[in-house]
């Protein structure tokens, strides 16, 4: 097991290096002067600020130094937690802007991932081998998982927000709300949170339900299931075993799907103007704020890596096959 986790950590470390290198490389590979490109749509009006910005970015890029030196400088400042200064919100540091946005993204992502995974697995197991559910609700699952995240968000915002008027459709709290520790504000947060959460949840739910349904059918055909049935075990026991075995590949699926769900959260935030990382990415693109964009990229990659590692650890804990090998009892 230690070998297994060590290998995983190596992969994640290399992935991190790759991500940082992409960040360093891409602006330097693109044609033209990155600093000029960045400032071409700079928001600051007066020439004094412009000049300050130009000086700052030229020194950060350090284009007059050799490439390896630039690369090392890049890593050095990264380890100091310095992701540069934002163009859009000059002179705020990117790290701070991102840290303010992370809680919103997590507030959408964590509940959506966990709840959709649990509910999807339950529902998929329930629907498997029930002809009626299989023929009515599973096509629905396929359609849900084929829905672009932002489109479901748009539909919910339009239907439940604009037309029905039940939920607000933009921001994390109302313009008139004053942030504070009180129930009114908390309720306002929940109301603003619900629609983006629901659209993320629904799309992901469809995928998990289908995955579980297919896995259960596969497990019910497995030889241990056939053997149990030949010995007259009740359907309930067979299904319980099948479910437990099907949950393991669904865990692996969770790790594989993390990137997609995170991407979905970014798109959903844009639909709802929810002030998380997705919204920052949009602002960064509109303002050519590449430091902010790259910072957001690194934050997301690190988040996905951490989540992957958590899934790996949980997997080791619940799969007896990896666990027993750890005790050295393998055959």
């Amino acid at each position: 097991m230690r070998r297994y986790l060590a290998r995983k950590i190596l992969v994640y470390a290399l992935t991190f290096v790759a991500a940082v290198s992409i960040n360093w490389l891409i602006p330097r590979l693109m044609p033209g002067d990155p600093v000029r490109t960045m400032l071409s749509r700079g928001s600051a009006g007066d020439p004094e600020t412009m000049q300050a910005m130009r000086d700052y970015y030229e020194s950060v890029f350090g284009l007059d130094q050799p490439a390896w030196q630039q690369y090392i400088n890049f890593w050095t400042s990264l380890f100091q937690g310095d992701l540069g200064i934002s163009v859009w919100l000059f002179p705020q540091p990117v790290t701070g802007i991102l840290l303010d946005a992370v809680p919103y993204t997590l507030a959408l992502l964590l509940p959506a991932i966990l709840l959709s995974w649990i509910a999807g697995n339950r529902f998929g197991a329930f629907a498997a081998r029930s002809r009626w559910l299989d023929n009515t609700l599973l096509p629905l699952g396929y359609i849900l998982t084929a829905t672009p995240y932002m489109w479901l968000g748009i539909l919910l915002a339009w239907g439940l927000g604009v037309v029905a008027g039940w939920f607000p459709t933009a921001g994390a709290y109302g313009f008139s709300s004053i942030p504070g520790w009180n129930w009114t504000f908390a309720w306002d947060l929940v109301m603003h949170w619900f629609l983006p959460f629901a659209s993320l949840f629904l799309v992901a739910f469809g995928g998990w339900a289908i995955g579980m349904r297919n896995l259960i059918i596969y497990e019910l055909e497995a030889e241990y299931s056939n053997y149990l049935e030949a010995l007259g075990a009740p359907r309930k026991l067979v299904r319980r075993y099948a479910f437990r075995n099907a949950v393991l590949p669904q865990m692996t699926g969770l790790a594989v799907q993390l990137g997609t769900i995170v991407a979905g959260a970014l798109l959903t935030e844009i639909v709802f103007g929810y002030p998380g990382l997705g919204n920052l990415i949009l602002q960064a693109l509109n303002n050519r704020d590449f430091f902010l964009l790259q910072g957001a990229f690194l934050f997301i990659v690190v988040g996905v890596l951490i989540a992957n590692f958590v899934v790996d650890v949980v997997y080791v804990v619940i799969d007896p096959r990896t666990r027993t090998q750890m005790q050295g009892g393998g055959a």
Partner: protein
Amino acid sequence: MRRVSLDVTDLAVYYRTLRGDVRALDGVSFSLADGEIMGLAGESGSGKSTLAKSLIRMDGRMRRIRGRVELDGTELPVDDQRAMVPFRFHEVSLIPQYAMSALNPTRRIGRMIRELIRSRGIDYTAVHPELLRRLELVGLDAQVLDRFPIELSGGMKQRVVMVLSTLLDPSLLIADEVTSALDVTTQRSVAEALAGFRDRGFITSMIFVTHDLALVHQIADTIMVMYAGRPAEKASSRTVIEAPRHPYTRMLLSSLPEVGVTFSGKRLEGIPGQPPGLLDPPEGCRFRDRCPLAFAKCAEEPPFTEVAPGHWAACWKVEG
């Protein structure tokens, strides 16, 4: 003559496919005496696996068309999944050919056995000592119960399955190609252990499905050879190997360089032609097209009759 344990009369089981019924089993009659171990042999497609499955658990595509199965005087409702449940494990049990993967990979073996036993409404504590005793008998200590299947070798898993399947002393045990995945020495010990189970009374009678005639004739009392969904010949092992009377059995034996070569899976080089398709099989004797002795009468189906005491065959040339 010993008491009849299993009595199968004119059993026909078809697979339903979109293109029509595949007559995998088309009129099979035989009986098994108390304590008898019957080897069941035949090429792939002969219906031997279908027969084995029919006696314990048909799959969704199988339909009983006609025929009757009696075990110890009680009719087995073979095509009624629900009604079959009380018989399974208690009266009829199975050692599947996939014994290596028959155990749930994510449960400790002991817990899986306990949950299975309890789910059948049996008090586990009453069975536990016997379980340990029998595990010991096949050379496993009680610790295997605390293991996950992945921690056991193939042979160990095979023995666990053998003990579990026979734990409730079933009247009939079906061993479905249990040895095909094992190496030669293990094959022999598994077969001998199963014969030992019969001797100790854990099981009353057994059908040993195989494609290895050499192995089966060492432990089986009788051998039944099937061809294209019907029995061709059944007699004592010795008679089948040394003095077969059905032309198919004879060609089968002579086509093997020596007894012991497995023949399933390959088309037999020694017998020209191939078995008839079972979607729409020809009338009369199904071996007719490949049979060197075939004559006009073979257009009628030969009955499976007793040609000598304890020796049945389905061939017009054998009779008389």
